[in-house]
């Protein structure tokens, strides 16, 4: 164990910090605001592309994927710098953190070129089609059906997804489909990239608990949608492996975002009550445990613990902040943090909205109950 970073990390941090000072878009430029998690305004697309080209988007990646082969410690310094300045990493977070990441792990060279790079460069945006009306926590029970044509050159997709964040604004959906209905449910799943302008794809956004016009969730209907075989990600019928990879990326993205939310809460809800000290400990513990995880020193399954710990810590602290503000928490719309044009307004909304949005953390990406099952079964070895 050691505390100090090597000098190369501090140099890296200083370089990135200077880069941000010199290049960050101005507030005037950033007036158009994103409307969903797959809607990136033009200025933010330019910014993400600039970061990509400078190797500052995902510094651990090689240069062709928006990075500079940075070390883990440098990667962490990068995230800390963004978080400290409350800069949202991408206005299409699932595109960057899950879909592009999954394509870089499982995609062909052509898929990386055609889909991953444009997502990273914010030329297109992406959404994740996993949950269905009958397949939420029981994701492997998904029923959206894809049939491979006799010639083997395309699939025909029929079925429905739901909770597909940003689908109505996305260019492409990473869609989990059943290709072999006779196989046990974890086998027989495949993954397809489905462009949203394909005939037969219908997207219907619906409001969230936060507001009727907060349109991020979608129902997505597929009726005889033709998808070329080259859009198959990973081997046929082996989508569950991709799903686990994607869910792993998702949980990593999520715990990192909870670390940011916890930092926000430290700044936005200063309190002399004891819960605030618990919040300080949660921030510190999540970072310590998460760093170890990112360093690859822990089994992948422990990311479930990070997701659970982080999402519940954010929820608890937000509830305390809400209660401490009392009736003022009900005012809506309201702002509970200084406006920051580089951030997502959801994170500075009224205390009630901030609290209620924390349930996305304890429900999406595998509910807290599912994470507890995973910890109990796969870490503690309790019987299924």
């Amino acid at each position: 164990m050691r505390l100090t970073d090597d000098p190369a990390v501090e140099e890296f941090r200083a370089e990135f910090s200077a880069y941000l000072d010199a290049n960050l878009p101005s507030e005037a430029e950033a007036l158009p605001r994103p409307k969903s998690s797959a809607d990136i305004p033009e200025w933010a697309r330019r910014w993400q592309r600039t970061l990509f080209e400078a190797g500052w988007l995902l510094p651990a990646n090689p240069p062709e994927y928006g990075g500079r082969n940075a070390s883990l410690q440098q990667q962490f310094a990068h995230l800390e710098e963004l978080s400290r300045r409350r800069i949202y990493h991408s206005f299409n977070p699932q595109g960057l953190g899950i879909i592009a990441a999954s394509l870089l792990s499982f995609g062909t060279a052509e898929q990386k070129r055609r889909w991953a790079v444009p997502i990273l460069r914010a030329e297109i945006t992406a959404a994740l089609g996993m949950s269905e009306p009958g397949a939420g926590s029981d994701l492997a029970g998904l029923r959206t059906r894809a049939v491979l044509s006799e010639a083997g050159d395309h699939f025909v997709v029929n079925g429905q997804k739901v909770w597909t964040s940003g689908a109505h604004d996305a260019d492409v959906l990473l869609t989990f489909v059943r290709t072999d209905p006779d196989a046990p449910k974890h086998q027989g799943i495949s993954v397809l990239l489905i462009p949203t302008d394909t005939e037969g794809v219908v997207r219907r956004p619906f409001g969230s608990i936060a507001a009727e016009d907060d349109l991020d969730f979608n129902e997505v209907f597929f009726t005889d949608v033709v998808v070329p075989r080259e859009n198959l990600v990973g081997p046929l019928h082996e989508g569950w492996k991709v799903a686990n990879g994607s869910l792993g990326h998702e949980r990593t993205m999520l715990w990192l975002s909870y670390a940011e939310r916890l930092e926000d809460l430290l700044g936005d809800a200063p309190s002399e009550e004891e819960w605030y000290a618990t919040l300080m400990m949660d921030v510190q513990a999540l970072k310590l445990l998460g760093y170890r995880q990112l360093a690859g020193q822990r089994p992948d399954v422990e990311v479930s613990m990070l997701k659970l710990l982080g999402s519940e810590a954010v929820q608890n602290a937000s509830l305390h902040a809400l209660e401490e503000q009392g009736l003022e928490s009900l005012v809506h719309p309201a702002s509970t943090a200084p406006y920051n044009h580089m951030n997502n307004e959801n994170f500075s909304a009224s205390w009630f909205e901030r609290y209620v949005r924390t349930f996305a953390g304890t429900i999406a990406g595998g509910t807290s109950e599912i994470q507890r099952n995973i910890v109990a079964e796969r870490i503690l070895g309790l019987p299924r």
Partner: protein
Amino acid sequence: MEFEFDKDQLMFQQLVRRTVAKIQALPEDKLWATYLELGWLEAPPIELAIVLEELGYAADPTPFLATATWFTPLAGRLPRSSGTGVCDGTGRFVLDADRADEVAILTKDGVVVVDGADFAAERVSIFDPTLHVAHVARPDLVAGIPDLALMGLAVSTVGSCRRILDLVVTHVKQRVQFGKPVGSFQAVKHKAADMYVAIERAKALAYFAALTLAEEDPRGHRASVMAKAAAGECQRLVFQHGLQLFGAMGFTWENELQVHLKRAKAGDLLLGTASVHRRALLA
């Protein structure tokens, strides 16, 4: 930064685990002699934390914790043999105060070290059968708890909690009701998972404290306070769920669970509960 043990530390941890498992049935004086022989009292903070976690796991009956983390930082040296320290300003419930060879006392005139043989301390009977505490009556005591003492109690409490969880996991895998191991029920799994998360959280903060103390980092004091508060929060949940999940069997004297539950609870109450240290963090 590097928050995982390096190779040498991992090897040391393995060695400590094996040693503690092998000798834990020995009488107290033999245990003590072994610890001295192995040089564990001289271990630097991270290695000391590794030892203390395992001794917590084993509910060690010797004055090791008090000697290494109460006496030594107060006196600024190792004792002749065993030692303890009076540092919370009250002199009440001082670990091993009536049996240590030397006692370091924090008074308004600074630290005074006295010989245990000439020192009056009155042992107090407490719930925990393995923990030795006594009251010290002196009018000139002041408070000044060493960071090492907070870290030491924290990591030792984490060890007790780990032991409780291990016992519980073994129990719920074996205990069959309704034709299934009770550990297959979600109500049981979810409590066990929460115990695990609480332990990992407290452990991470305890070792972070040890790391800051090892490197004499300015964050050392706050990190130690956090570690003690987190260990206290951890035992609160682990005690509650641990005893509940063990069912009636955990409610008996014969079951070893009781020893570790009491250790964990005492670990929170000694030198200030989680609540006391949360408030210290806010001050």
